[in-house]
């Protein structure tokens, strides 16, 4: 991993304890870095652990081993005490904007709160409120809406408000967990474009978690693919998409319906994601893998460097010559 990473996860394991059962290891040895000005997409099927990884990245769940660093500082799990000011510049956008905004407070007040809390220094309430119009305009909303309540807006508008609130604390890195999947078709593209534009303009790092692969393909510089708790492939978006090395990535890409492609059905990947409490032996993908070998059932797959900055967790992956 690079030294200039803004947000860095190193060998992160997250296990959920269950009474009377073995713990579920939701994330297993995940390493991922987000640099300033870089958009990293994290994709995978539901239940693969991508949301848990996102929550661990901002300290909402505690890793059982490994560590998360933000600007060199260890991200400690959120407790009862206020977060250290340095870590407040790591922010999160959630899936459901109606749930993440307070329904009983005006939009402008909620954004002003974030201005005050984010800075750590005592910002006067009127000073904080004065920043609201500029923040609303940055996310494409009118400054006039500051005195209205969240329920007066559509899902896409609410998500913009949530993004304005995140921007209020002057973040250096944003983790967005399925920020567009609860929105309408046209709002999805708008919000994805907005997040990408905001990150680019201000040189922020953005970890964009989504099960919508084609959106990630459009906006992410690098893509990480997760399966059953592990990052199975990570690399430059173009490379990962056009010539995926891991068989799971290949299956994902083939399953995307292509608009305008005529009567061509997307390719099925048989089987379901196994129960993470009882993962398969050897390579976790082997029961569904179309190119499985005997060794895959027993051996843990190695991390293969396909090319610089491009890794795949598969026995069959081989290094490729540079372009």
């Amino acid at each position: 991993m690079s030294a200039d990473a803004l947000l860095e996860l190193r060998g992160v394991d997250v296990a959920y304890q269950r009474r009377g059962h073995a713990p579920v290891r939701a994330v297993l040895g995940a390493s991922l870095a987000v640099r300033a000005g870089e958009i990293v997409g994290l994709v995978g099927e539901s239940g693969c652990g991508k949301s848990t990884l996102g929550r661990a990245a901002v300290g909402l769940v505690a890793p059982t081993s490994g560590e998360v660093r933000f600007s060199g500082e260890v991200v400690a799990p959120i407790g009862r005490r206020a977060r250290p000011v340095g870590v407040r510049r790591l922010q999160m956008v959630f899936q459901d904007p109606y749930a993440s905004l307070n329904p009983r407070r005006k939009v402008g007040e909620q954004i002003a709160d974030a201005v005050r809390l984010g800075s750590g220094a005592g910002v006067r309430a009127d000073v904080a409120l004065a920043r609201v119009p500029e923040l609303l305009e940055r996310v494409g909303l009118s400054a006039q809406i500051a005195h209205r309540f969240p329920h007066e807006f559509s899902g896409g508008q609410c998500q913009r408000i949530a993004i304005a609130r995140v921007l209020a604390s002057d973040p250096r890195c944003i983790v967005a967990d399925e920020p567009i999947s609860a929105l309408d078709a046209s709002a999805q593209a708008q919000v994805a474009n907005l997040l990408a534009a905001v990150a680019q303009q201000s040189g922020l790092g953005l970890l964009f978690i989504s099960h919508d692969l084609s959106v990630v393909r459009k906006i992410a510089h690098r893509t990480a693919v997760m399966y059953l708790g592990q990052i199975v492939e990570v690399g430059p978006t173009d490379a990962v998409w056009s010539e995926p090395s891991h068989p799971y990535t290949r299956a994902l890409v083939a399953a995307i319906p292509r608009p305008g492609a005529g009567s061509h059905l997307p390719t099925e990947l048989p089987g379901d994601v196994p129960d993470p409490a009882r993962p398969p032996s050897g390579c976790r993908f082997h029961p569904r893998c179309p190119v499985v070998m005997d060794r895959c059932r027993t051996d843990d797959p190695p991390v293969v460097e396909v090319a610089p900055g491009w890794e795949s967790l598969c026995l069959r992956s081989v290094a490729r010559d540079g372009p």
Partner: protein
Amino acid sequence: MTGEALLEVEDLTVRLRTARGIRRAVDGVSFAIREGEILGVAGESGSGKTITALALLGLLPLGARTSGSVRFAGTDLLTLRRRELQKVRGAQVSLVSQDPMTSLHPLLRIEVQMTEHVRAHLGFSQEQARERALEMLAAVRIPDPEQALASHPHQFSGGMRQRIAIAMALACEPRLLIADEPTTALDVTVQAGILALLDRLRRERGVSVLFITHDLGVLSSVADRICVLYGGRVAEHGATSVVLGTPRHPYTDGLMRALPGAAVAGAAMTPIAGSPPSLDAMPAGCAFHPRCEWAVATCATRVPALRDVGDGRLLACDVDPLAPVPS
């Protein structure tokens, strides 16, 4: 449409009672589905696509008024009494909704849910109904159907639940399946499985499908024809290859360009500006004109008529986006 149409919807209009008065949620919608055909109905929330589906099944909320006709195998469903409609619903026409948990009872075993309507509609014994349930679960490729019958819905993943919901909808061998966003909540890999399943059902069993979704990418792979709805009206209607190949309504065109096409990486998606109108604030004239790049002055006042523009396509736009427009 020719006489072989299984379902013919003509001039369907649905008026709903809202807090601010009576509003037209569906306004003069017509389409037809042939045996074994998949018709895609596309549109965003508020386009009237779900209300259309509910109207076909007589499942609209109280106070809703329906006019026009819905002829299914020769009978107008809108004129049927409740008792008579009940014989059609679930038996000949069935519904698969977006969230399988709304069609599955959380506390009942799958066996109870999958046999009850088969016994009621087809007069099967429990034994026969059970056989049918096993057969349907196998058809949707549920591993170990015996085990599945003894299980509860929460024991399955989202994709498995949706497959069970489809198996349930198919148990009485309906001739028409209305699928309302059946894959929207699912992962692409699972979605691919459901699409393949629907395609197989129509080929092997001649089931017709009304496939409602906002995702044109999904429709392009399974639908024979596509009907694009906006603001409760038909915007564009024709063969999938025609409508998606060369969209001529600016809304269809916008939806296509908003799609993060898997073919080109890098370039940003071009979203349609604004958001779909709510029922209480439906724009005058063409409902799409406030968001339309091609709009001219008359669009704000005149409702565009749905006209046949050749190539088997119906189009409701007075400005043809293929023709150059003075800006």
